[in-house]
């Protein structure tokens, strides 16, 4: 970013003073001050549950604070609704998009826009969208229906929608959580261009690298309170991490355990994706006891299908899967579970958990079949509860309140709960997909530690991750998937980020 450092930002765009917001007794924001200047990208950093989304929603008019003041452009305002905020030029791209799937991009842009009359010509709209898109690197086809777009493209539409309404203060709530590394880079370029044009950007994240890479200033929240604010030029990752978590983080060192016998062999497996095209082709992977094999690759290159084929949720077209000497290619998911297969799925909330059920039920999702949780067809609720208490303590799962839906837990706690369930079944093979995606620093540490301990205890782990750092930290061997095929297979000491990056982009070593 060296050549494009903007002029010193000046002029107050927005100021929040003493914002407090409680949700049914939980303090989401407590006396938070925040100020934003024109022309800057201001990162809002904090762990999950720190209150970032709440603070943004207050500025975007979605929530009314219990107390505190909002000043825009120097004037005190009262924002009654997101609409009023939009009238003041404040707009937010929410963590969960709010587009209408069936509508086209153009229709979504004009939806609810007061000035778009009935007669606004489609051509002029498309021209404006095209212009905005080119200027800020937000190209999308105006005629495409939203459901046809990738997540990254949908995000562009969200941003375009706000720009089209003349928003000058743009809030993005964890925009990179759903993006590939490449898409994130593009987004950063867009944000920089928007800021250079004098807009003010709030960029919410819990990733330190992103703060360092893109923000001019950073404000750190912890447990609903502001714990620090500084220009990024004066910040360093270690300080930010300490502010964010409230303590120093230890670095995991993986002591090497000698790998044992092969436990999982995937032999020449080909399988189709949801659209009937071959999603993985002739994949060969072998995982030994005590070994962590990392599968690297950009999302959408067959990772999900690979995990599903191994766990029995998808039928392979060709090839063979052997686990502990048994051919499980045609086995049901249940048979595989009984043979000792554990699975941490990528989609935690819908696949890994039944989000609407209490945690105790979710922790029992696999163990309910045997005593002590059940005898014959009859379930023991008491045993289920007891087991849940034990696992909560053992795996440090926090925030559990009785029969509350599991979906109310934070991402880190949900992931701990999934691991608690899978590891307590003493698996021989564990497939872990995106095990730490979207989690905060402390949770990431805890989850990685659990995986390492599990491998040391003899489990064969197949870890699928887009996070190169994670792959390099944990794996004994790295496999790179590209367009459904294994590009290469490297022992840990031969794998480095540059090489992996190249392979992930589909370029073989020779071509480099």
């Amino acid at each position, binding site marked *: 970013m060296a050549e494009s450092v903007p002029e010193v930002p000046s002029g107050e765009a927005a100021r929040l003073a003493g914002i407090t917001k409680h*949700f*049914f007794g939980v303090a989401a924001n407590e006396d938070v001050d925040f100020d934003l200047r024109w022309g800057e990208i201001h990162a809002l950093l904090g762990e999950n549950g720190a209150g970032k989304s709440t603070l943004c929603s207050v500025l975007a008019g979605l*929530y*009314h*604070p*219990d*107390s*505190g*003041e909002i000043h825009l452009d120097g004037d005190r305002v*009262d924002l*009654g*609704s997101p609409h009023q905020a939009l009238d003041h030029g404040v707009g937010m791209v929410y963590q969960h998009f709010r587009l209408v799937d069936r509508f086209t991009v153009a229709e979504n842009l004009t939806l609810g826009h007061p000035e778009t009359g009935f007669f606004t010509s489609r051509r002029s709209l498309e021209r404006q969208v095209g212009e905005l898109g080119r200027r800020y690197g937000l190209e999308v086809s105006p005629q495409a229906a939203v459901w046809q777009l990738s997540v990254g493209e949908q995000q562009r539409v969200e941003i375009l929608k706000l720009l089209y309404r003349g928003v000058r203060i743009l809030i993005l709530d964890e925009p990179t959580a759903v993006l590939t590394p490449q898409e994130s880079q593009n987004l950063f370029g867009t944000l920089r261009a928007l800021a250079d044009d004098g807009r003010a950007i709030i960029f919410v994240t819990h990733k330190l690298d992103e703060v360092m890479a893109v923000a001019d200033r950073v404000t750190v929240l912890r447990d609903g309170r502001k714990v620090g604010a500084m220009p990024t030029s004066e910040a360093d990752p270690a300080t930010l991490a300490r502010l964010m978590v409230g303590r120093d983080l230890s670095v995991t060192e993986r002591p090497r355990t000698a790998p044992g016998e092969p436990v999982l062999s995937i032999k020449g497996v080909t399988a189709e994706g949801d659209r009937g095209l071959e999603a993985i082709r002739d994949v060969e992977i072998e995982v030994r006891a005590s070994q962590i094999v990392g599968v690297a690759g950009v999302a959408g290159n067959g990772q999900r299908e690979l995990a599903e084929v191994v*766990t029995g*949720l998808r039928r392979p077209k060709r090839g063979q899967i052997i686990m502990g000497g048994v051919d499980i290619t045609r086995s*049901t*998911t*249940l048979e*595989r*579970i009984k043979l000792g297969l554990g*699975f941490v*799925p990528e*989609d935690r909330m*819908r*696949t*890994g*958990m*039944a*989000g*609407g*059920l209490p945690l105790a*039920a*979710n922790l*029992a*999702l*696999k163990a*309910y*079949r045997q005593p002590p949780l*059940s005898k014959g*067809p*009859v*379930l023991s*609720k008491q045993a289920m509860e007891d087991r849940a208490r034990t696992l909560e303590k053992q795996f440090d799962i926090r925030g559990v309140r009785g029969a*509350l*839906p599991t979906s*109310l837990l934070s991402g880190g706690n949900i992931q701990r709960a999934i691991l608690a369930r899978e590891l307590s079944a003493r698996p021989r093979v564990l497939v872990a997909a995106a095990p730490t995606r979207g989690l905060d620093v402390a949770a990431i540490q805890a989850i990685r530690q659990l995986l390492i301990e599990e491998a040391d205890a003899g489990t064969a782990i197949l870890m699928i991750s887009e996070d190169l750092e994670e792959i390099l930290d944990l794996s004994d061997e790295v496999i790179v998937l590209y367009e459904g095929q294994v590009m290469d297979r490297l022992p840990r000491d031969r794998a480095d980020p540059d090489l992996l990056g190249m392979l992930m982009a589909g370029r073989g070593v020779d071509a480099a």
Partner: protein
Amino acid sequence: MSLSLGSRRLTVESRPVPSRLVRFLAPTFSVALAFVIGALILVATGQDPLLAYTEMIRKGFVGRLALTGTLIIATPLIFTGLAAVVSFRMKVWNIGAEGQFILGAVASSGVGLWVGDQVGGPLGIVLMLVAGALAGALFAALAALPRAYLNTDEVISTLMLNFVALGIMNYLIFSSFSFWRDPGRATFPVGKFVEDVLFLPRMVGRLHVGLIIALAFTVVIWWALRYTKWGFELMVTGDSPRAALYSGMRVDRKILSVLMVSGALAGLGGGIEVGGVLHNLDPRALSLGVGFTGIVVAALARLSPFGVIPVAILVASFSNAAPGLQVLGIPSEIVILLEGILFLCIVAGEWFLRNAIRVERTAGPAGAEAPAS
């Protein structure tokens, strides 16, 4: 979401978990509101709401005849209500209780006519009821199999099958000289009556033991949903089919079994109606919408098996009182109207369970707000 009204602002926030008080107040308030709206409509149409309501209570509950009459009507509603509870709990929408109930009646009357007095009372009755349940289950399977294995929409298939069932029943009595039809009555077609030994025993007046069977099944369903692996799998599948698949459950078989249990309950209800009340296949008495009302009952009971009992009795008391109201010059449609209003109010109440509304003053110093919901 929020809405400004002058200096006030209404803010809506979702309530992840409603408090105990709210969970109790919302339905109580909904029922009360339904009666208030009903009263307003009565007043608007020149009726005396007080008179209407007292009559409804009197004709529905006061005295042996009123009470047993209400309970007799409630019995099949408990079965169709339970049928809806079981399937709706899994978010599989069996709208076909009506047809399953009818085919249950067809099968049990058929078996009753077939066994005659050859096997004796108790065994004959059991055979009739088993046949009713089986027919309901198999009829539900017609929708369940394509739903489980081809992922067709069960709402449409179960709904359409209602008309098929109705057609079959009408054909057997009105358009053919079938085994079910009384050949002696050519001009005014009716179903043949089963032997007296096959009548369900009566307890008080005309009130038959079907009510006890209904209560027993309520307990069984409650227990099965709460304390069995089957109920656990149903709950997980209902909340997230993907999570169910992932944890090794067979979602297709679950859909099949749940829809068939649901159909069996409705079919058993039909069998009990034949054994306890009608004693023949009577298309007029069997096409009053018991299956559809069961859906309303289940919804009002918020899918709780035990909730089905009081709701079924309340709704049954309305129907029981309707003819009596007409005598007083109050149109009996008021009863259907009340049912509808009740349904709408409960749906609205459900919304209040999930969302909190706060009224705030927008002017004045920050912090001076009056939460009121």
